[in-house]
């Protein structure tokens, strides 16, 4: 049946086209219908390869379905639906079309069975998502969007280079296990790493996501990094270097998150922290670890989306997002407060919520495989994520000191979207078997044994106790209006000002050289004009006619000379 063969990105791309020609209720209905219809369609598709053709001696597979890609496709449909409901109140064609194309590109990348198709969707992800940042329509957003675009396209170019190396080495473009034993392997690894926000390549995320629109950030947080996680899980499972990279990713962002003022930037740092858990899981590479990494990616899309939505709602209703400007909003935004707390508790991995059932798999796998120190780092990161995302976000936005802002709860569509996400967080937490049945491996893992629950509860409650104690003692760093330097300082400040110094020297040398030359030229010209002036004066007293007579004489003399040559 041909309808089965239709890759899921097609309805999204066609939908984006239809959005251009529709308005109002009709447009909203189409936007909501597309992910639902596409998800139902996908539910009926069995595993297999559905689309394949030869291109320049290479076999291309734009549509390949297996358990790994299906799981990501399901969560992308959920994320797209939630994001679309969250943005139903918008009257902005640019954002709505861009979001639809962006979701479609993510689905295209997930089902790509060869590196060339992956590259095309990889770049489409970059190009479509940048409009969600540009749509903020401020100078800051524009600058951030350009930096974002450059880095994302760079990642794509490296991927293409890697794919070409891979093709020449293996005579195939098939996208499967790649491994780190060749140049192609490393190039593709770096390309994935940039999109995955590896340390030192992470700054595009914390730079651009907080500058995107209220609704755009919700889409952004769902797709780009998870595609990278998916790609790593397919191409580099069990690469030990990923364990160390991932552990670094879980730990360093939490320090920045504690001192960052912009609450959406705090969430961006905690996004890196969560992706770190996934990367560690992929690096460990056992069935349990891979399951944990993928399940955590699934849950993270939902609870991180919920957190970004709740902060988006705050920004939408108050126009402010800095922790130093907010506080006391629970009084007038009770629904948002409760939904935000559900998301915060989920990301902190409280038992009975979604984060717990997936993060504990990665931690258990780390201990089983003897990564003791890594396990300690992950444990520290778990405590830290509760500290900054679990407590700091709700506390500074909705409680803390009363900022005097009396904003009401956001429009119903926003509340509905957050409620769906919160319901999913709770449902997966209570009944994880539903999620586990979708995972690629069957490990019979059960998160709810007394040891795990008690240990996690102790860890979290005493992290909270640390927060309470520090706050009561006045030791907790207050929210300050500030910019916190990160690696982006290198390319936003150090390199430009360094270049400026270099160019300053070059321009000065250039000027001196030019000045000296024009001076010499000037002297020469003056000498000759002085000569010609004296000659003209001999021919006539009147300056113009004398000069003319002289030049006519010169021309005639030249003619005479040329005729001699002939």
């Amino acid at each position, binding site marked *: 049946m041909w309808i089965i063969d239709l890759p899921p990105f097609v309805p999204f791309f066609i939908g984006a086209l239809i959005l251009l020609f529709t308005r109002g209720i009709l447009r909203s209905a189409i936007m909501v219908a597309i992910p639902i219809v596409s998800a139902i369609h996908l539910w009926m598709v069995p595993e297999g390869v559905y689309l394949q053709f030869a291109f320049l001696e290479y076999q291309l597979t734009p549509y390949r379905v297996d358990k790994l890609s299906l799981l990501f496709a399901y969560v992308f449909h959920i994320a797209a639906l939630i994001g679309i409901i969250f943005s139903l109140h918008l009257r902005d064609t640019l954002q709505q079309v861009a979001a639809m194309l962006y979701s479609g590109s993510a689905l295209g990348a997930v089902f790509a069975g060869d590196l060339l198709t992956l590259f095309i969707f990889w770049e489409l992800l970059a190009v479509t998502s940048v409009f969600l940042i540009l749509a903020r329509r401020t*100078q*800051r957003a*524009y*600058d951030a969007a350009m930096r974002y675009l450059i880095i994302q396209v760079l990642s794509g170019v490296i991927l293409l280079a890697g794919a070409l190396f891979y093709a020449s080495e293996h005579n195939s473009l098939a996208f499967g296990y790649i491994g780190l034993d060749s140049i192609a392997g490393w190039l593709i690894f770096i390309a994935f790493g940039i999109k995955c926000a590896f340390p030192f390549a992470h700054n595009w995320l914390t730079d651009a996501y907080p500058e995107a629109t209220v609704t755009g950030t919700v889409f952004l947080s769902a797709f780009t990094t998870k595609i990278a996680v998916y790609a790593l899980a397919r191409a580099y499972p069990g690469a030990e270097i990923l364990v160390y990279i991932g552990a670094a990713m879980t730990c360093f962002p*939490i*320090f*920045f998150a*504690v*001192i960052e003022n912009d609450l959406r930037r705090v969430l961006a740092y905690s996004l890196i922290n969560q992706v770190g858990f996934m990367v560690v899981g992929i690096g460990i590479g056992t069935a349990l670890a891979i399951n944990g990494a993928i399940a955590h990616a699934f849950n993270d899309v939902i609870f991180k989306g919920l957190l970004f939505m709740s902060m988006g709602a705050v920004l939408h209703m108050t126009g402010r997002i800095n922790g130093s400007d907010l506080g006391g909003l*629970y*009084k007038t935004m009770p629904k948002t407060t409760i939904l935000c707390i559900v998301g915060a508790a989920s990301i902190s991995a409280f038992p009975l919520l979604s984060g717990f059932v997936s993060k504990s798999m990665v931690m*258990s796998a780390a*201990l089983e495989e003897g990564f*003791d120190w890594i*396990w300690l780092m992950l*444990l*520290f990161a778990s*405590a*830290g994520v509760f*500290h900054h995302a679990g407590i700091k976000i709700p506390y500074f936005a909705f409680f803390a000191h009363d900022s*005097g802002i*009396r904003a009401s709860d956001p429009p119903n569509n926003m509340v509905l979207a957050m409620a769906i996400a919160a319901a999913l967080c709770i449902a997966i937490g209570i009944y994880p078997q539903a999620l586990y049945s979708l995972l690629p491996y069957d490990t019979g893992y059960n998160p709810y044994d*007394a*040891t795990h629950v*008690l*240990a*996690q*509860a*102790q*860890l*979290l*409650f*005493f*992290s909270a*106790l*640390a*927060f*309470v*104690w*520090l706050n009561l003692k006045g*030791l*907790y*760093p207050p929210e*300050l*209006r*500030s*910019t*916190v*330097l*990160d690696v982006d300082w290198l390319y*936003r*400040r150090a390199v430009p*000002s360094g270049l*400026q110094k270099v*160019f*300053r020297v070059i*321009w*000065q040398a*250039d*000027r001196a050289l030019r000045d000296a030359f024009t001076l010499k030229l000037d002297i020469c010209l003056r000498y000759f004009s002085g000569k010609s002036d004296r000659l003209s004066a001999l021919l006539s007293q009147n300056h113009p006619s004398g000069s003319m007579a002289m030049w006519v004489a010169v021309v005639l003399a030249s003619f005479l000379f040329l005729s001699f040559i002939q």
Partner: protein
Amino acid sequence: MKDDKKHLFDDPKNIKRLLNIFYLCCALLVILDFVIHRHTMHKWDSLWAFYPIYGFVGCVVLVVVAKWMRTFLMRPEDYYDKYSTANDNSDTINKNALTNNDLHKKGAHHVDY
């Protein structure tokens, strides 16, 4: 537009109550350590009250280090805005808009005049 309605945490008594419940939970969790036998997987987490101490100390260290990081990483809010492309006039050949100081900073290149 101050509202006169009393909210849950406007009353310090409620905050006190909440904190007391919280302390009680913490104490209870430590006591549970004696009641429930944790089947531990590693020598570290078989130590008494490993998770509570690790969680508490970890978070205090996190905050102290983060606070210390502020001393050398914090800059004013408009730190990067000064270098935004909006202020960079060199491409628009609007030389009059550039002050002498700006010109000097850029090495005073004068290609067109």
